[in-house]
């Protein structure tokens, strides 16, 4: 358990650092902006208390905001994601429910399952984030286009990150 907690703290720091130091400086074509940091909210254990998810979402969003001078923007989007995550998980639940102690990662439920889960979560988060950023529906198609391109970029990076972490688990 302690081991697992330590791993979560390490991956949290790693994800935030990669986001802040590398991905925030990566502006592909002016539109594409991968937001890897939500991966941390996605991979928390299925049984994580829902209120704890909300708190994690809020804090993570604020940390990212503090680096980007967008106070409240990422916090609101990540809190929404944390709120909706249990719903997404319920829709995607296996026929006989989740086993205790299972993690929503490819090594537990398969790659295709994780891809579905990640697509729904990432798209929801990004759409909300970009709408809040624009703070208007006036440029809706620009916003939608940004959302789609950035979602694809985020998904690619999330999948890459998952390849690394699942390999680590098999070794143990």
């Amino acid at each position: 358990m302690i081991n697992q907690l330590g791993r979560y703290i390490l991956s949290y720091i790693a994800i935030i650092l990669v986001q802040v130091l590398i991905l925030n400086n990566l502006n592909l074509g002016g539109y594409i902006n991968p937001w890897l940091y939500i991966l941390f909210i996605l991979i928390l254990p299925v049984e994580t208390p829902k209120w704890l998810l909300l708190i994690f979402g809020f804090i993570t969003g604020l940390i990212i905001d503090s680096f980007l001078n967008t106070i409240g923007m990422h916090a609101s989007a990540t809190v929404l994601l944390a709120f909706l995550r249990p719903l997404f998980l319920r829709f995607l639940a296996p026929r006989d429910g989740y086993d205790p102690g299972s993690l929503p990662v490819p090594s537990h439920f398969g790659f295709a399952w994780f891809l579905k889960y990640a697509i729904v979560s990432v798209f929801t988060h990004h759409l909300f984030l970009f709408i809040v950023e624009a703070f208007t529906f006036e440029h809706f198609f620009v916003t939608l286009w940004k959302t789609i391109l950035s979602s694809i970029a985020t998904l690619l990076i999330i999948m890459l990150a998952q390849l690394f972490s699942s390999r680590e688990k098999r070794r143990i």
Partner: protein
Amino acid sequence: MRNFIRFILTYHLFFIFLLFEAISFYLLINYNHHHNQTFINSSNKFAASILKISSSFTDYFSLKRANEDLSRENAYLRTLLPDNSYNINHDIHLTQEVKDSVKYLYRPAKVINNSVNKFHNYITIDKGSKHGIKPEMGIISARGLVGVIRHVSPNYSTAISLLNTQLRISARLRETNHFGSLEWDGTSYQYAILNEIPAHAKVSVGDAVVTSGYSAIFPEEILIGTIEDFNLNKGEGFYMIKVKLSIDFKNITYVEVVEKINGDEQHSLEKLTNHD
């Protein structure tokens, strides 16, 4: 009452969610409207020190470009020297005498954080109130206008980039002296839109767009960009001009913060007149 408590308990998650969203939006809106109130921005110590370490690595990649800019700027300044009004033998301390004899003070600074791909882009620089930086000072670089200081901490400042849909700059055409207002439309980091140039002005592609010098922030004749494309809005009698920015916002490292001496005086005088 018991029913009410049961209602709260049943939907407590939803209420926590609403609470967090309310805090987020409060911060978001508050931050956009009131200056100097929030400390959670990239001029705070924690974020700024991490960004500074990161920039100490990434600076090496732009050294060549930075050198070119600096040498160009040196050349430019050298050409100005004979005309400069104050005595070079004096130490360049900010004595009252110096302050009286120049119109603008320039302080060098380095960009340690920057973005181009949002609707509201901000810049963080490595100089703060200790170095005399105050909110509402302008930022320029050797190649043109960069932005306006917004928040200041002892060692760092954050600035609204020209690439921010909230910023409007008073600009004019260098050829004809007609002035208008320049703003960014949130799409490409290479272009901004110049409005309010009257229909009778002669506009042609390639003309330079510079600052008007009417505001208490920027000196006159700071380059903003060149005209890329324009069309006449018949109904309003104004041109809508697409300006190609002279600065590559993806590549700015060394900048200068401009302070207008007596800028406060101009500002408060204009405020007084506006109240009449």
